[in-house]
């Protein structure tokens, strides 16, 4: 089954990446263009032209979607029996929400995406490491909270008490971690409207990708389950 879920994850991720990539081309790319215009020119160097970079955007999001889709399939195979949802559709949506939160949304709260020109090139290495550490901690926190919730459920703890305790612990741990990490880049005088529009389009691109991935994977599982059931 591991191979089957991996295949479904790759297929769902490819579709999700393509859809999110085309979305980003139409709704995110214009804000990248505005940011580059503020900088007074095109890319860093001239090896790749702007039209090719815009195509590269779709390729990048598709490659990202396919890769996280493969991870999704493997994690789904490993954790399927432990998830409380009553069907694969529910399990798939929950897993995509968990991975969206851990891999993107929670790190985004600490280190929101920067359009070209709003970041600081001098400390890109430090910021990249800080970002990766944050992704690792956030995704771990999500899965630890999920597991603790499951253990408490199996011990018979009521739903309200369980979710309140796990939720409070989760928020406390992440708040402490966020406070301990270096602050995000100060955008200085970077125009706020461009920054806002860019960040919202980043959030929308990622949300669309993970929603599509979860839904497509869930549908593939339900279709296969339905076929099996009808024999």
């Amino acid at each position, binding site marked *: 089954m*591991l191979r089957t879920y991996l295949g479904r994850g790759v297929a769902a991720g490819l579709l999700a990446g393509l859809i999110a990539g085309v979305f980003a081309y139409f709704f995110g790319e214009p804000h*990248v263009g505005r940011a580059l215009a503020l900088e007074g020119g095109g890319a860093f160097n001239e*090896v790749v032209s702007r039209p090719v*970079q815009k195509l590269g955007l779709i390729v990048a999001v598709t490659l990202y979607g396919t*890769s996280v889709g493969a991870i999704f399939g*493997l994690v789904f195979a490993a954790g399927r029996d432990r998830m409380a949802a009553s069907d694969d559709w529910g399990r798939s949506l929950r897993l995509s929400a968990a991975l969206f939160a851990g891999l993107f949304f929670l790190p985004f709260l600490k280190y929101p995406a920067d359009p070209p020109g709003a970041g600081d090139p001098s400390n*890109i290495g430090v910021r990249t490491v800080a970002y990766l550490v944050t992704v690792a901690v956030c995704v771990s926190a999500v899965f630890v909270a999920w597991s603790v919730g499951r253990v408490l459920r199996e011990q018979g703890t009521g739903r309200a008490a369980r979710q309140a305790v796990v939720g409070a612990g989760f928020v406390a741990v992440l708040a402490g971690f966020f406070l301990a990490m270096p602050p995000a880049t100060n955008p200085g005088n970077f125009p706020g409207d461009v920054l806002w529009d860019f960040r919202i389009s980043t959030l929308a691109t990622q949300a669309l990708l993970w929603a599509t991935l979860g839904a497509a994977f869930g549908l593939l599982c339900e279709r296969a389950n339905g076929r099996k059931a009808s024999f």
Partner: protein
Amino acid sequence: MHRALGRPNLWLLPVVALIFLALFAALFDNGALLAPLLGEAAGKTNYLHEFFHDGRHLLGVPGH
């Protein structure tokens, strides 16, 4: 996941390596991957960074 097939899934190793290689190429590479092909020019031209540039910004990865 190993329990499901009753033996270690060794084929997983190259699959996982490929997944992380793809993510690294799309999100983080700054010339290292093409250095065996292009030598010193790989860092200066930085093809993968430039090609995936807008995607990196819009996926939320730290950039310039």
